[in-house]
């Protein structure tokens, strides 16, 4: 089609590049990408022009009309379901390699025949030469615009070694692939169309540089096929990943560029070390600017720079500042074989969709379940070894999205324990079945049944007329209170929350929905209301070996206030959250949350709004804190109601039972 257009246009008046692009864009926008059909029609047209060089322009014009007819027909196909069309494109992209092969083979045969015919015809050698010259001029006149699109780049087209027929077909295929890739990327984004336009522009730019090229070798065919396959695979991957919506074009382009660069670096050398430019620290500082050097290895995940400047890190928590990047998908190398469920979980964890220790644990086990189910054992590998390495890479990715919590660590230990216990020459199906059953059992016993037992135990401690105080949001506490209410106990609930996290409001909403009489107070009022409270019930993220409780930041303060008024403090904690480590403060292990959470979002004139520009201001948002055992009256587990100091006893008990 390109050729036809040029033939048509060149003698009359030259279209500008933009005009040409627009024309092409309009054509491509509504084209149904059935590559084979298009290619066939094109081929027919080409054949016609070739067979009738005499007719030259006239024939071309006629043929163009035919082409346009074809295009109109295609355009008239109204695409109702965008997804459907994308799926179609997807499927069509998957089909090509095979069919293209066949077609190419057929075409090559035809080409050979044609060449013979062409060589024989000497009727209009001039015309043919003209055509060729024009083509070459076209090649020379248009500057080669390097496409910045990763998809374009990855499709390496050797300008000098592609035949006419195959080049056209290749262009079509590439265009179709690129377009569908871009459409998928921009799926759901408001600026979808403009992106498509821009993407099409880019495509066209590159297409301009690719003109009739002769003398294609089989090797080049294979190469181009490979490229097409890789593009198709990329497109496949992109559909399985859910990218963040609302990203600007520039960001996406930058992303792709970064990815491309990384791949280039990986390709060129087996292992290269690149020293990133040192972070520039402002000249006036209180603390010494640290110089960070990051080493990028080809096989490990890339870590992107932190968004905070160094001066705005709190000194005592330097060890906790990870390279906090909201989009975990940037870190996945293109050829990774992570299970989509794992990737999905990673995104959910990093965007805090899944939060709370129980939810995270169940989500992780569910993802592992799927991973085991879909795991394909490579040849000559032992099942447990193979799965262990696959598991390790999956977990490596997951822990970069969010630090694991105690329940997740224990769940993984449990899984690994059972994986290691599989016999050596176990049948793959049996092994998978065993592992999946074990996971289900863990969830059922350690989380669900334990939750019920704890609920009953705490219910025995609640009497009529009590006022129960709780902090933040915990699924277990919600279960306890709701079940106690439904069992007929009459009590009031006080939910304490903080401005920083919306958890407490969520807890309040849930309790009110079940009909419990609740009150909400901010953390600042906890001392004031404590005199009306009879008992305090708290949830836990983890229980340490000395009996200290790791929980959402603010829990220790509530426990302290309760102790000051001699109110009993109960901590409801499943035994699977008990961990063997011991630390006494909230500095050693913690998570730095998003500093923007500290801002009052509804207040436009908030003095914290421009904290990034103020180097003397460091918002610190810690996620967890540690409540010492002396402030806690009792820990309620499914085994018994225990004093805090008996945590090692439970750990010992668990070790003997579960080997974790």
């Amino acid at each position, binding site marked *: 089609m390109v050729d036809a257009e040029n033939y048509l246009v060149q003698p009359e008046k030259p279209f500008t590049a933009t005009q040409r692009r627009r024309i092409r864009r309009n054509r491509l926008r509504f084209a149904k990408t059935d590559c084979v059909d298009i290619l066939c029609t094109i081929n027919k047209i080409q054949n016609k022009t070739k067979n009738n060089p005499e007719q030259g322009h006239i024939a071309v014009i006629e043929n163009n009309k035919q082409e346009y007819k074809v295009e109109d027909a295609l355009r008239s196909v109204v695409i109702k379901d965008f997804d459907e069309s994308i799926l179609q494109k997807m499927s069509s992209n998957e089909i090509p390699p095979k069919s293209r092969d066949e077609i190419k083979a057929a075409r090559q045969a035809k080409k050979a025949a044609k060449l013979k015919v062409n060589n024989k015809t000497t009727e209009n050698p001039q015309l043919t030469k003209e055509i060729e010259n024009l083509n070459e001029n076209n090649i020379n006149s248009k500057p080669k615009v390097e496409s910045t699109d990763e998809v374009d780049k990855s499709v390496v087209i050797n300008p000098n070694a592609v035949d006419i027929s195959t080049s056209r077909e290749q262009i079509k295929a590439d265009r179709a692939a690129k377009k569908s890739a871009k459409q998928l990327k921009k799926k759901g984004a408001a600026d979808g169309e403009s992106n498509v336009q821009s993407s099409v522009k880019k495509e066209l730019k590159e297409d301009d540089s690719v003109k009739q090229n002769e003398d294609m070798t089989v090797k080049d065919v294979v190469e181009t096929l490979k490229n097409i396959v890789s593009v198709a695979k990329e497109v496949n991957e992109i559909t399985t990943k859910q990218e963040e919506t609302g990203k600007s074009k520039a960001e996406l382009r930058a992303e792709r560029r970064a990815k491309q660069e990384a791949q280039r670096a990986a390709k060129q050398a087996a292992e290269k070390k690149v020293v990133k430019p040192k972070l520039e620290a402002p000249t006036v500082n209180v603390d010494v600017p640290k110089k960070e050097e990051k080493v990028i290895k080809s096989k490990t995940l890339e870590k992107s720079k932190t968004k905070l400047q160094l001066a705005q890190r709190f000194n005592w928590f330097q060890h906790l500042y990870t390279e906090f990047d909201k989009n975990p998908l940037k870190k996945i190398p293109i050829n990774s074989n992570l299970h989509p469920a794992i990737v999905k979980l990673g995104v959910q964890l990093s965007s805090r969709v899944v939060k709370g220790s129980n939810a995270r644990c169940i989500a992780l086990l569910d993802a592992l379940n799927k991973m085991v189910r879909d795991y394909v054992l490579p040849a000559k590998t032992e099942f447990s070894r193979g799965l262990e390495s696959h598991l390790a890479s999956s977990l490596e990715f997951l822990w970069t999205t969010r630090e694991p919590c105690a329940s997740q660590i224990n769940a993984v230990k449990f899984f690994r324990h059972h994986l290691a216990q599989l016999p050596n020459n176990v049948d793959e199906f049996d092994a998978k079945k065993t592992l999946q059953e074990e996971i289900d059992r863990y969830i059922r016993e350690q989380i669900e049944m334990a939750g019920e037992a704890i609920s009953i135990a705490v219910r025995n*401690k609640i*009497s009529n007329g009590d006022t129960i105080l709780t902090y933040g949001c915990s699924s277990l506490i919600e279960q306890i209170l709701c079940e106690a209410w439904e069992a007929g106990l009459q009590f009031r609930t006080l939910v304490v929350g903080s401005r920083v996290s919306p958890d407490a409001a969520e807890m309040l909403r849930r309790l009110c929905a079940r009909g419990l009489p609740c009150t909400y107070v901010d953390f600042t009022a906890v001392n004031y209301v404590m005199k009306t409270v009879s*008992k305090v019930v708290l949830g836990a993220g983890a229980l340490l070996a000395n009996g200290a409780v790791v929980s959402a930041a603010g829990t220790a303060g509530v426990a302290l206030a309760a102790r000051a008024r001699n109110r*009993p403090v*109960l901590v409801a904690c499943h035994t699977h959250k008990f961990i063997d480590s011991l630390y006494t403060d909230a500095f050693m292990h913690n998570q730095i949350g998003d500093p923007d959470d500290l801002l009052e979002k509804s207040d436009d004139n908030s003095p914290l709004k421009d904290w990034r520009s103020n180097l003397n201001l460091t918002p610190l948002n810690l996620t967890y804190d540690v409540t010492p055992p002396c402030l806690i*009256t*009792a820990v309620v587990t499914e*085994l*018994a*109601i*225990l*004093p805090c*100091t*008996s945590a090692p*006893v*439970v750990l010992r*008990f668990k070790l003997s039972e579960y080997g974790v």
Partner: protein
Amino acid sequence: MKKEEVQAIFMKILREEEDVSAGVAAIKTLLTVIENYKVSTVRELDLNLQLAVDAMRHCDQPVTAISSGCELFMRFITFAKLDTKSFEECEKIMLQRGNIFLDKLLEARGKVAKQALSFICDGCKILTHSRSRVVLQAMIEAIKANKRFEVFITVSAPDNSGEMMHKQLVAAGVDATLILDSAVGYVMEQVDIVMIGAEGVTESGGIINKIGTYSLGIAALELKKPVYVLTESFKFSRIYPLNQMDLPKEFKYLSNTLKSGKDLSKQHPLVDYTPPSYITLLFTDLGILTPSAVSDELIKLYL
């Protein structure tokens, strides 16, 4: 088997053997039940025992030791009842184990008393509360070991059991002084150690004892005096009271009071709960334990 019969046996044992505590008497009663009331299945035996325990709880005796002792007894004997051919053999085994348990219990007191010996030094002043047979035995052992010490005993209203303790101590040759319950704060600065018994030990490591123990514990903590609790291991119970109100009603009031339907908030409770933070050490036949270790031992016993 009828309730009244069990109660009769129980009361008889209590009357005849002065030295025996309510808990031990209860266990003896249970053994008698197994021996005398023949049944044909294990399930029936279980039912019988449960009925017996229930009967004893309504005997107007302090329930704490009875319930914990009986529960441990049942766990102990049923621990090995499986896999035997006939029920008679089963019963025999259970009886055997029951008697072993009882023997262990009777020895327990002696063990505890011996352990306490090293903590009673020459010239020390001991404060104790109400009547405890274990503490009595410990002091008698100390006298036999030629130690010189002084004892302050509280009268311990409403049943004035402290007076009986005082009599027994004086008869044994101990230099004992009877003080009012309200004088505990006054005397505390003179004493060196506080030694008390317990009717029950809770999972938290705290104790349930005659009313007035809690005040004693608070005063001792304030004046930095160590509080030693002398108790046998069969008094360990699985309850975990969070505060005084959280104690089960059966422990605090006599069964008659509970049955009579009076307003409990106006009745005097018999026992109170001393939280583990007021207790220094527990002397038991399992060893000398800190309050936090009690939970450990309990888990070993029950899980």
